């Protein structure tokens, strides 16, 4: 090769390398007036709420999609796209819909749109647990629709508040088919302007929104998995709001005059679970002994830095009020006595499974529990799992002790209790096959027209049964911890773990 040709090759190589490096023309995302920049832990996986994939997807859906009915921050049911509703017998609900609402693509929201969506939801695998009860939907007139359920269901109306039931434009469904997963079209206060995968989501205010006008022209969402980076972005002024602030950073952030911590109650509890189908753990006294050996307060204070809430029961307190007297208290002497009565006066060995990073300080909690149980002679071997195989293994019921969390997305106790503790529940990890529990839960479902307070007594009874026999030990009631810039006004976490930006503004 001649010198000239060699030189050309080298020059072209360098030019190619430089061309690869130079970033293309990209918009610089800086805070503009009326723009809110939010850092979440991961990107939105799909914009099809009926086939949602992660809890973070649910955080964002309510900005774009709405349901017929919503739950406010006190979990009180309020009108959404439906202005009023009434029961028709014990197997139907009739909804009067708001008029004049249009989807982001301009097509009208009406009773036919509700019918299309409910039928789609009833067939969607991930929504079936809540919408599978739908038998048929009748369009009475353009703005009246009646939904019939297969069985009487006292929880059906509450199920409709779940964010997964967002109403999608039927025109868009027909036009895009499965690609609706990348092209959201709802009625919400924001519409999608841009989604650069794993980099940013840009939502712009919906100028034709029927409800309270947004005070934000634009909402930019950035997925940042690394907690330290997310917090640094808030501290450095690159973000205005971040989710899931680590407890050990809160004190430091609170000292920063430019930042605030927004904390709120949640509909999620985290448990130490017992797989009671296991030969050893069938023993109620053994389980009660373990429950009494757990110093929950110490874990809340030292592992969770006092930033999470003491649970009052299996169900989070915002969903089911309880005095908390059914919880088995920390009492190591009683624990040792029960252990001896159970036939394990010399102690025993158990397997303890936990995911890592799925729940706040899950591994650290497992390690703390290991130390506490060792004091009464229960030696646990911790096995840390990656989430995907963890769920598969839990479903095979190979576990003994395990850490698991669950939320109650419809604000009703039935949501979690049925899934976790009914013999036909979707999460049979505790392996509870108790006819009495099943009967109580089925009875609760059938109490149509009964005042909520009456129904709740029944769920309190279920809760007492489960706690007294130590099927699950609630470790903490989650508090949603967000960090915000002091310039952000009106932001508060929603208990249902989604972004509610009503009334939020940025100075």
């Amino acid at each position, binding site marked *: 090769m001649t010198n000239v040709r060699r030189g050309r090759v080298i020059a072209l190589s360098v030019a190619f390398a430089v061309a690869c490096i130079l*970033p293309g023309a990209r918009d*610089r995302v800086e805070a503009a007036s009326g723009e809110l920049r939010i850092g979440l832990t991961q990107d939105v996986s799909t914009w099809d709420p009926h086939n949602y994939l992660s809890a973070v997807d649910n955080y964002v859906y309510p900005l774009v999609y709405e349901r017929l009915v919503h739950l406010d921050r006190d979990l009180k049911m309020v009108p959404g796209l439906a202005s009023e509703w009434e029961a028709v017998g014990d197997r139907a609900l009739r909804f009067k819909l708001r008029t004049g609402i249009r989807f982001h693509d301009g097509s009208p929201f009406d009773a036919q749109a509700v019918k299309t969506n409910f039928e789609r939801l009833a067939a969607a695998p991930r929504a*079936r647990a809540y919408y599978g009860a739908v038998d048929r939907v009748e369009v009475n007139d353009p703005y009246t629709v009646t939904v019939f359920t297969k069985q009487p269901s006292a929880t059906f109306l509450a199920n409709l508040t779940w964010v997964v039931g967002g109403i999608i434009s039927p025109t868009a469904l027909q036009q895009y088919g499965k690609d609706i997963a990348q092209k959201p079209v709802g009625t919400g206060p924001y519409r999608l302007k841009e989604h650069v*995968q794993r980099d940013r989501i840009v939502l712009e205010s919906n100028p034709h929104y029927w409800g309270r006008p947004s005070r934000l022209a634009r909402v930019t969402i950035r997925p940042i998995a690394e907690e330290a980076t997310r917090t*640094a972005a808030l501290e450095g002024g690159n973000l205005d709001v971040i989710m899931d602030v680590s407890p050990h950073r809160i004190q430091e952030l609170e000292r920063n005059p430019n930042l605030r911590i927004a904390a709120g109650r949640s509909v999620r509890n985290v448990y130490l679970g017992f797989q009671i189908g296991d030969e050893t753990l069938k023993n109620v006294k053994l389980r009660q002994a373990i429950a009494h050996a757990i110093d929950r307060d110490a874990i809340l204070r030292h592992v969770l830095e006092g930033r999470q809430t003491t649970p009052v029961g299996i169900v989070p307190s915002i969903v089911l009020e309880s005095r908390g007297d059914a919880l088995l208290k920390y009492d190591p002497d009683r624990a040792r006595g029960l252990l001896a009565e159970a036939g394990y006066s010399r102690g025993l060995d158990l397997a303890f499974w936990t995911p890592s990073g799925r729940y706040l300080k899950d591994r650290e909690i497992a390690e703390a529990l290991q130390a506490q149980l060792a004091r009464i002679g229960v030696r646990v071997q911790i096995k840390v799992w990656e*989430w995907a195989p963890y*769920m598969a293994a839990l479903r095979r019921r190979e576990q003994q002790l395990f850490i698991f969390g669950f939320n109650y997305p419809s604000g009703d106790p039935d949501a979690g209790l049925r899934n976790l503790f009914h013999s036909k529940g979707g999460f049979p990890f505790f392996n509870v096959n108790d006819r009495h529990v099943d009967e109580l839960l089925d009875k609760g479902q059938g109490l149509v027209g009964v005042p909520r307070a009456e129904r709740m007594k029944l769920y309190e009874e279920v809760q007492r049964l489960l706690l007294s026999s130590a099927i699950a030990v609630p470790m903490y009631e989650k508090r949603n911890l967000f960090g915000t810039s002091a310039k952000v006004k009106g932001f508060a976490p929603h208990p249902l773990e989604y972004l509610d930006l009503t009334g939020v503004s940025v100075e």
Partner: protein
Amino acid sequence: MASRFAESLVQGLVFTLVLSLIAFLTMAVAPGDPAEMLLGQDATPEGVRAMRAELGLDLPLWKQYAAFLLRLAQGDLGRSYENRRPVTNILIEGLVSSSQLAGGALLVAVVVGVSIGLVSAYFRNSWFDLTLRIVVLMAISVPVFWLGLMAIYLFAVQLRWLPSFGRGGAEHLILPVLCLSSAALGIVIRITRSEALEVMKREFITAARAKGLSEIVVVCKHVLKNALVGLITVVGLQFGLFMSYAVVVETIFAWPGLGTTLIKAVFSRDFPVIRGGIILTGAAFVIISVATDRLCAVLDPRTRTA
């Protein structure tokens, strides 16, 4: 030369084929069912069966592999289980993003590292050389993730000179590129110094000086050109390790690159993305290897075959 290129191409294709089989079989035996992951709490046995049928996972393994190869031959890597987007699009986006980061870091590492290495070799055993060798040792020892977090804290949080994360304008590249370049800088300096010292002992260098060429021309043209051959070979071999550091940097700086794409796909058992990523990465290795050979041949005619 053409036959050597053809030989490399055939080897590359065979390697990619073997890699595709390994990728396929690995996913087949890995714990965690994609259908269960996608269905979550609604993963009833019937639902899982239906989802597996929809994803084609209920077919015998050999049929799945045959269908996969057929699509691969047409350049189709399938669609993501998660969001149904074409895997090719997902991977190309990640590759472009990672190339910016990795290319920039490599450029900085080579330009800075070669310069320092040459100076260090020229002034060997001086205070500058000794100090530099200590600094290089420290640079090699410091974990990349720690360096990244410290850089964010200093330049983004305290000084507010630079953004702390994400992709955007040129200023978004500075911290992640500098952080990633540190992973390669140490070895580039050491190899350059070592090669340069070796070259400087050669007779042709003495002859060049005897001819009256200036020290700058001797070092920057003759020593550098001969030292680069060894450096390029080592950098090519280190490429895999360098990309593993790139994944760490992408995570720290929330840089939407190929590494973080593949990590997410592994956690969510998104088989098509994982398989496509493994094949793409393997193909990248083959290309880097061939490119390294070609570049060495350009720089050193003695390495060319007839």
